[in-house]
């Protein structure tokens, strides 16, 4: 067969290059990564809590939380000085391509499990940074993007109200009325379901409602479309969602966020290359 002969002779570098293999550095332990070192606590029990989150080990995270609480560590410190720091490290590893989506999900699961133990001791849920309402456009059943957005928001200390998929526009408006979120997120895979976004923006305006940011993204959604209606900010990656919400919390308007998107999310974003 020609394919086998060609495989012996061809110089593959002249056909393609696997840049992911080429740029791969030596394997290092997550805790030795310089960006992780910056956020990783050095004192116990916080280091163990953070490490359990970094390794996405729910059992160890729960164990470390129980043990810290038994020894008198304040529940809020368990969360803020231990678990949350582990999640910060995970975000750093993800942003640089050392960690992948499943790593983040397992870390988020570990953090959630251990946080529940700490919150039980605290007697209430820890205070959240703010509330975000998330939905998938009416007529659209594709929700993996929305699920990621919700996960990233929760892992970063936001109250994420998940309205689900195929959500009627009126239900989105009602949720904005009820929760007064700092950000609304809408996702759609299809070009024809994304038309729900301007309709929602219009309905909010008609009812005298607004949100600081209406982050929209997914499949066929593009920046020029999202920027064609008020409040719309085109969200490129799910993990940008907490950064956008934090910007809104800090008082930035949707117009500011549109202008400063790459700066706010802290990385090069091709879709906003003209605004770097």
């Amino acid at each position, binding site marked *: 067969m020609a*394919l086998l002969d060609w495989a012996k002779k061809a110089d593959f570098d002249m056909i*393609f290059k696997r840049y992911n*293999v080429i740029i*791969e550095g030596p394997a290092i332990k997550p805790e030795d990564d310089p960006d992780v070192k910056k956020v990783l606590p050095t004192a116990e029990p916080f280091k163990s809590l953070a490490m359990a989150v970094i390794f996405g080990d729910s059992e160890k995270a729960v164990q470390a939380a129980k043990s810290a609480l038994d020894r008198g560590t304040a529940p809020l410190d368990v969360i803020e000085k231990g678990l949350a720091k582990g999640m910060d490290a995970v975000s750093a590893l993800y942003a640089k391509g050392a960690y*992948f989506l499943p790593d983040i999900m*397992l870390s988020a*699961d570990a953090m959630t499990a251990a946080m529940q133990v700490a919150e039980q001791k605290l007697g209430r849920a820890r205070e959240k940074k703010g509330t975000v309402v998330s939905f998938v456009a009416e007529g659209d059943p594709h929700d993996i993007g929305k699920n990621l957005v919700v996960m990233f928001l929760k892992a970063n200390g936001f109250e994420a109200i998940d309205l689900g998929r195929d959500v009627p526009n009126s239900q989105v408006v009602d949720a904005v009325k009820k929760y007064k979120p700092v950000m609304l997120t809408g996702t759609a895979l299809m070009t024809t379901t994304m038309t729900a976004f301007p309709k929602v923006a219009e309905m909010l305006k008609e009812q005298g409602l607004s949100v600081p940011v209406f982050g929209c993204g997914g499949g066929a959604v593009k920046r020029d479309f999202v920027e064609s209606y008020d409040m719309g900010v085109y969200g490129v990656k799910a993990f940008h969602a907490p950064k956008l919400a934090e910007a809104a919390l800090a008082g930035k308007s949707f117009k500011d966020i549109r202008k400063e998107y790459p700066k706010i999310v802290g990385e090069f974003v091709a879709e906003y290359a003209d605004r770097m």
Partner: protein
Amino acid sequence: MGVRRYTKMAYKDPDEMVFGHAKFPVLEHWNVQFGAGYVVPEVKVAPEPGTERSKETLVKEMASIAEQAAARAVDIGLPAFMVEQEHVFQQTYHADWGYACTLAQAEVLKKYYDEYGVCAALRQTVGDLRIEEKGGLRGSEYDNAIAQCVEECCKAGASDICAETMGGKSVLDYGVMRGDIRAILFGIGYLGSIDMEYFWKRTVAQCAKYDTRPAGDTNCSGANTCMYVAGGLLGKDMSHTGAALARAISAARSLVAVECGATGPLKDCGYENTIIKAITGVPICQEGKNAVCAHADVMGNLTCQVVDCWSNESVFHREEMGGPTPAVWLQATGYEAALMNTAIQTGNAKTLRDLYTFTDMFRDPQGTLLAYPNAYRVGKAIVEYGKDIYLRARAAALEASKIMMEAYEAKLLQMTRFELDTLRKYTSILESLPMEAEIFVDQCMREYPRKIPTFDPKSYGL
């Protein structure tokens, strides 16, 4: 209608497979044949956002898409072409919209066929509106709407019907996000196959009443989700080896449509179609380098290797410098098909096939797996356990793993640590899974209904 499980391959040797030829060609009205010795170009255009606001505007939009494509087909001298329309929500949900839109396009294509003799096919891909947590996959309002729409599209003159059903997606999504290969196998391979049987027994029976072929169903919601989440070489959401395993599993699932009576040409975005063609001999549509308008992929040439109908996947309906998108992108797929047809006519088909294959065979693990000699191996693994939907999906994944590891060890396929580690980890999990479907399902049912709120076991008769 029964389900005919495949336990042997349609082709004796992978080298018998080449573009434009299928063991079982399909003839559709307006005289288009698929797999009968030539490749048919396809164009698919999504209606301009906003045109779905009323039935009238959408019907007008559909007619315009068909007219622009047909006019360009004649202008550049294409012998045959296909227009595929993937439905927007409203088009499937309101059966009368589905009817009117199909009729408008059918009338245009018939007019061009009558006037110029240009052979044309009209594919209607109904939307899978069903949502597990909203009434389930069987007998819900959405499910009934789909069934009614299929009927109306057939009545209105569709040449064939396709779908991209979503069975097993809730569990698959969980597996993708958690890196859980068992959930991916359960979601696509087991639940997906069960839902396919439900959906395609019905659809095949409906099409049989009309001059409409039940064409097929891709695992767009599963294996393509994995492929797109994995992204390009610098993607950081899923390993490309994991996405390749999902693809192998999806072949066992998408095969079910053919087992229920679907004839092909299988739908374009089913990258698993090469495997299914090897097993069944039905013609296939594919997409690749001329689908750059829709997405980036890492096997733009390879997917031409054994294609029978070459597609652009999807593009917005708008103006390009070269004209409206239905015209422009049919021209793109039309010239690629012309190259393949020239190769067939000049006796160079196998050489061109191998060139297409070789450009991408080691660019990415999924390309390695789908290169036709390897796709054939996955097909053989499937038919070995052909009667058991679980075991054959597991066997497909294990064979795919073997193929990728062999290419890696031969220093042909390079992998990152993440790709290699994931492959080794997933393989070891797959190997450790039980050899009895009942035990596997029991294990999954103990875990996933509890962890995945949107998973509705009743939708699968579980």
